[in-house]
């Protein structure tokens, strides 16, 4: 061998083409992701990741409790916030788990769908050589029929039992009958998993195209509400919803009825409203806790109720202003807390200028039934002995700064700086309905009375029917896949002698493809049915 030869000789066989590393990595990752082991791990991760959302308050569920958590754990709360602890179910890490899980699911069910479609189109495979090696087999049965007759008779028996059946003739003169049943198991399995996908898609679209808002609706025709974004107390629009998309309707609460047990436990609630949809006439509708009012493009749910206090304030120039302010219940007996703020009072008619040191606010509690024990909480939720306990404040209410504050509490910052001063002493002043209270500067507050209010949750979710349908189909698929059993049965009809004198030897074998306790009986009955027909 020379050097020249060595150099010139081309490689006889081209080196095996190296698969693209990126491609191989992708393919292996995909295989890994779609494996059952990964799916199980992801399922567990999802279960574990859901736990913090039940331990920590969630902003989407109850924002006030998140605020309370911040106050109770001032050092821990910001860290939780950074980790998404208050919005677990919207956090990237939670989303990444379920998206991976669903990717894994898709990767698993698509090939299975292809295989199942193929299996449904294909004929049942031919009988294995040795039927007696199968988990279930029968001894030989002799029959006077020809193999062709015997096999077609057995096939009829099987078809009557809704087996997919195929008869094959073989070169040695024997016939085989292949039968399979229980395809619905895999159909159900696939249906279940695709239904889960439908539910996920439905939930996603519902989030994008749905909206909801809450509104406290006080009784009275002067307290009506129209479906405009600005009229909600709080609202959330989906990313694909515009304020102009809200349907056009107006509500007025005409009546609110609540009944209680003697223990104070509520018995029933019902809200009666006057509804105007679009240009239509006003209609009267009644709805209750479990029976929402369904309008076009929105559902109105009754989720709470309470008392709104009507207060009339007469200022130092003799002008009066009346406010109807909802007080929020803080316990089951409807001890309620709230504020009434009068920023535009005590305006000197000569200068017509607002004096920021003369704004007035009242803060306190309303008790529908004052107990005999003198406690500061209500004794019964209905208005048996109502009283209002108020503290008066005068000064700058701090409403002009522009920072959004609660409408159910005075600005504590203003009180702390002394811009807003308590002018009625440490003990709250008690007012019964109709009572008047003259303040230190001669101005007067009158407790006119109360009106009921209903807390309404108004919602629109365009895909909830799709989600329900998905869930129902999923359940159907689940039951089919859990209670279905795929099994195969084969019969072989051999001519009883090489010359083919007419007789047949029949053997049978059965293969349950899942753990099916009843298969032994079914197989025995099939064999018996095949035997009974023998002449």
């Amino acid at each position, binding site marked *: 061998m020379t050097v020249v030869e060595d150099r010139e000789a081309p490689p006889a066989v081209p080196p095996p083409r190296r698969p693209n590393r990126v491609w191989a990595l992708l393919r292996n990752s995909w295989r890994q992701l779609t494996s059952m082991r990964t799916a199980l791990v992801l399922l567990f991760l999802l279960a574990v990741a859901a736990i913090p959302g039940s331990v920590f308050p969630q902003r989407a569920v109850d924002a006030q409790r998140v605020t309370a958590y911040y106050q109770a754990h001032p050092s821990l709360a910001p860290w939780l916030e950074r980790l998404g602890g208050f919005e677990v179910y919207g956090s990237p890490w939670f989303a990444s788990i379920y998206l991976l899980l669903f990717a894994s699911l898709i990767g698993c069910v698509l090939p299975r769908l292809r295989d199942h479609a193929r299996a449904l189109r294909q004929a049942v495979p031919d009988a294995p050589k040795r039927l007696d090696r199968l988990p279930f087999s029968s001894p030989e049965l002799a029959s006077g029929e020809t193999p062709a007759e015997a096999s077609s008779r057995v096939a009829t028996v099987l078809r009557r039992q809704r087996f997919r059946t195929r008869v094959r003739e073989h070169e040695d003169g024997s016939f085989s009958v292949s039968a399979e049943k229980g395809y619905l198991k895999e159909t159900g399995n696939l249906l279940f998993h695709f239904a889960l996908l439908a539910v996920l898609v439905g939930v996603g679209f519902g989030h994008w195209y749905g909206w909801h808002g809450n509104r406290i609706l006080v009784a009275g025709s002067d307290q009506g509400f129209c479906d405009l974004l600005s009229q909600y107390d709080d609202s959330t629009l989906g990313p694909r919803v515009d304020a102009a998309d809200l349907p056009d309707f107006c509500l007025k609460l005409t009546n609110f009825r609540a009944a209680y047990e003697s223990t104070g436990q509520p018995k029933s609630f019902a809200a009666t409203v006057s509804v105007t949809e679009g240009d239509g006439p006003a209609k009267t509708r009644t709805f209750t806790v479990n029976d929402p009012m369904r309008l076009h493009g929105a559902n109105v*749910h009754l989720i709470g109720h309470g008392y709104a206090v009507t207060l009339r304030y007469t200022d130092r120039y003799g002008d009066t202003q009346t406010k109807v302010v909802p007080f929020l219940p803080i316990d089951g007996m409807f001890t309620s807390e709230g504020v009434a703020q009068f920023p535009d009072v005590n305006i000197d008619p000569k200068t017509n200028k607002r004096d920021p040191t003369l704004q007035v606010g009242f803060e306190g509690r309303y008790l529908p039934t004052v107990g005999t024990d003198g406690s500061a909480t209500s004794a019964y939720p209905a208005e048996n002995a109502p009283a209002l306990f108020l503290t008066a404040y005068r000064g700058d209410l701090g409403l002009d700064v522009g920072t959004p504050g609660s409408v159910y509490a005075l600005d504590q910052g203003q009180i702390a700086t002394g811009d807003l001063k308590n002018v009625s002493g440490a003990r709250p002043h008690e007012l019964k309905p109709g009572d008047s209270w003259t303040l230190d500067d001669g101005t007067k507050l009158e407790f006119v009375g109360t009106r009921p209010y209903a807390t309404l949750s108004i919602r629109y979710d365009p895909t909830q029917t799709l989600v329900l349908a998905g869930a129902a189909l999923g*359940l159907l698929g689940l039951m089919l896949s859990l209670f279905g059993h795929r099994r195969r049965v084969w019969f072989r009809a051999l001519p009883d002698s090489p010359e083919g004198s007419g007789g047949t030897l029949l053997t049978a074998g059965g293969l349950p493809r899942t753990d099916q306790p009843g298969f032994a009986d079914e197989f025995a009955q099939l064999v018996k049915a095949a035997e009974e027909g023998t002449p």
Partner: protein
Amino acid sequence: MAELSNQLMAVTVLAYLAAMVLYAAEYAFGSQSRIGRAAARPARQLVGAGAPVTSTPSLDQAPPPVVASDKRGEIIGRAAVALNILALLLHLGALVTRGIAADRMPWGNMYEYILSATFVGSAVWVGVLLRRPAIRHIGLFVSLALVLLLGADGMIAYTPVGPLVPALHSYWFVIHVSTIILASGIFLIGAVPATMFLIRDGYDKGKRRFPYSLGRNTPEAAVLERLTFRLHAFAFPLFTFGALIAGPIWAEASWGRYWGWDPKEVWALISWIVYAAYLHARATPSVKRTVATWIALLGFATMLMNLFGVNLFFSGFHSYANAGGM
């Protein structure tokens, strides 16, 4: 009537306790034929290596006491089953009188919920027991679980009879709660053969430490495993319907949203995911049956967490234990 219900409840717990003692007595003193064989076997095993001569007399001597103890065990076992059935009837009585006292389905609070779910569990157990008397030896653990749950129910969760809050005035109350009670009762009974399977499997692998030593008397591992699966496969769709379909339908009507990540909803979803993982694990040949069964037990632990933990420690929309509000 409410008083009667409380008394029946106390008697029920005592009856389960008595049944448990009898099951335990059969476990300890009497013996199934298998134990009889086991009693004879050590002699042969000891001598099998080198002294076949002595083995013969010991085998001859062995049978009479075995037969006697078999008979005694059989009597005790039957008495245990009879007491168990009696306890079930008392349990039913406690439930019915509670319902009459409240004039509604007795599913309005945690106390009544546990009373109902344990009844379903007990009824399923008696049903399975009557069809397959051979699994009687699990009875000790079933009655132990029932006594513990009912005892906890009476001590922590007792609530006087009262009417339903308005939020529960709905026919979905019956549908949603009853299916979940059924499903939880069956999951509860499913957890017993699951535990026994793990014990028996350990015993078969030669472990003899305390929990595994109980495996000496149980039905065969494969029987227990299959029973575990069938109970779970039956309960899972029920739970799916009750918790994830009927629940959201009602929640939509009542609270305005079909799913709101309420702690109870979250834990129901967690249980559902874990039980789904069990069914997947069991259907996967590469996952060991013991691993799958551990997952089923984990699922039951999440059910217990939802029942006790969520009711007692977290507040949410499902807090009906304290009356008031909507």
